[in-house]
């Protein structure tokens, strides 16, 4: 058993061996690199769905604009004051930071949960691309309340798109990663242009008309029947927590470890305000112009013609591809005798099957909130372990110090905080905040008990 345990830990470490050491001084990146990186990362396929979903959830125009501004500012501040200071001090990836605190087993479980979430996200992006590929074939588009595949043509096109995405993920994703960087500025402009060009169809013929049309025709304050009515609080919390796993959840330690200063976390503002502000507003306008249609392909075509449809395919594809590749990488640890292509193929097939269900796209907001909620508590654990434990005379990275394989305090604070949040009578968009406090308190108390019981020297050396 011990031999098997060590082999699992070794396999896991081998996957991330190349970035085991802290980033060297000469590898640090300038501020402008982070500006570009965040801008590119947050103008993606998901933006084509999230903007329209605000419209169908009946957000009022003022609530949308104020909520997005406050929520995005909170997100940026979370990067700046929570994630970046630890990233520039440790200069380790999330994997190695977690490995020190939680041990290899718990880090493995976290990686698998993360990979599963990646699969669903990739599935949603395959479905997004399929809505554009299906346009020339007059494919019936999925509706807002559709859960199951509505036609054979939908299944066939999703299967074809999923097959291509899987094939490219098997071949690797470095070239696609570079291609997606090239697409980023063009994609952002397509969002803007498509939205501006449909404004006349909504009765807006100059920028001076915009606010009136926004209130009367786009963000009317009335939800589509059967949809939850959103308020400014929903908008604000959704914008703040849309990337919860990245900032408070600390996944962006991996990116910001290359920053020269913690203030580089402010670069995330480009992603938030270009992607999660301008692009969401733009896709919301497109949804209103398409009389409430939320399928990304048709709404982008309505605004930008062929370029819009191509943009949707590229946005879906470039988001799905690295996501699928990384999910395959994580699953490979569980199947060491399989070649990487086999694991990626199996992951791709499962993801494509999931993509056939339109609910994955239509419930994307709930999924995004769940994704952040499931991964966030580990960020709280890192925060407490790094800042609070030493101040209370306890040892950081205790599991690494005692050469343990599993941190029970981290595990209980992870699962316990999620459990508590699900018991609270709150909508999914609001659960993360109490869950964060619960994770902090549980980890603090259990670490104290663990280190006290260990009977060893706990003062930080």
């Amino acid at each position: 058993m011990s031999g098997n345990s060590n082999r699992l830990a070794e396999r896991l470490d081998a996957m991330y061996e190349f970035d085991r050491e802290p980033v060297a001084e000469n590898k640090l990146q300038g501020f402008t690199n982070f500006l570009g990186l965040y801008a590119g990362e947050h103008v993606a396929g998901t933006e084509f769905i999230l903007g329209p979903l605000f419209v169908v959830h009946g957000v009022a125009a003022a609530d949308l604009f104020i909520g997005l501004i406050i929520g995005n500012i909170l997100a940026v501040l979370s990067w700046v004051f929570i994630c970046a200071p630890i990233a520039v001090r440790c200069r380790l990836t999330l994997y190695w930071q977690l490995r020190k605190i939680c041990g290899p087993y718990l880090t493995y479980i976290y990686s698998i949960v993360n990979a599963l979430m990646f699969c669903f996200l990739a599935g949603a992006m395959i479905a997004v691309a399929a809505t554009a590929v299906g346009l020339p074939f007059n494919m019936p588009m999925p509706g807002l309340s559709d859960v199951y595949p509505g036609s054979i043509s939908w299944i066939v096109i999703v299967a074809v798109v999923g097959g291509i995405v899987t094939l490219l993920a098997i071949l690797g994703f470095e070239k696609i990663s570079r291609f997606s960087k090239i697409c980023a500025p063009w994609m952002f402009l397509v969002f803007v242009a498509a939205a501006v060009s449909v404004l006349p169809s909504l009765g807006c013929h100059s920028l001076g008309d915009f606010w009136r049309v926004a209130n009367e025709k786009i963000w009317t304050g009335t939800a589509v029947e059967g949809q939850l009515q959103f308020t400014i609080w929903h908008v604000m919390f959704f914008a703040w927590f849309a990337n919860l796993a990245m900032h408070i959840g600390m996944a962006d330690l991996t990116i910001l470890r290359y920053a020269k200063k913690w203030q580089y976390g402010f670069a995330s503002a480009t992603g938030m305000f270009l992607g999660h502000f301008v692009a969401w507003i733009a896709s919301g306008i497109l949804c209103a112009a398409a009389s409430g249609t939320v399928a990304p392909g048709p709404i982008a075509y309505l605004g930008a013609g062929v370029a819009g449809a191509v943009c949707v395919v590229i946005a879906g594809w470039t988001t799905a591809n690295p996501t699928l590749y990384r999910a395959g990488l994580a699953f490979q640890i569980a199947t060491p005798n399989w070649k990487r292509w086999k694991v990626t193929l199996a992951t791709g097939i499962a993801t494509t099957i999931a993509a056939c269900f339109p609910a994955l796209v239509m419930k994307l907001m709930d999924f995004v909130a769940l994704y952040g909620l499931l991964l966030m508590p580990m960020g709280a654990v890192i925060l407490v372990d790094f800042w609070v434990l030493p101040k209370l005379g306890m040892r950081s990275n205790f599991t690494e110090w005692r050469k343990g394989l599993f941190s029970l305090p981290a595990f209980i604070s992870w699962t316990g905080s999620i459990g508590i949040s699900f018991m609270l009578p709150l909508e999914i968009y609001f659960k993360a905040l109490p869950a964060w406090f619960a994770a902090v308190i549980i980890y603090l108390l259990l670490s104290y008990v663990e280190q006290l019981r260990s009977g060893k020297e706990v003062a930080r050396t």
Partner: protein
Amino acid sequence: MKKILLIASLTGLCLTVIPSFLVLGGKISWAFHSNLMMLGMLLWFISAPFWFGKEKDRSE
């Protein structure tokens, strides 16, 4: 050569976004704007891969 590529790329981006404002102002038709966007897309994707982001890749 790089200058030509840069100009082509920037023209591509301009053709992507500027026509939409002309549609808003009622100066051109939506169909014309859509064709210009397609032209902009072609210009961008033909020229940008030769220069965009290359220096960053080398520094990484």
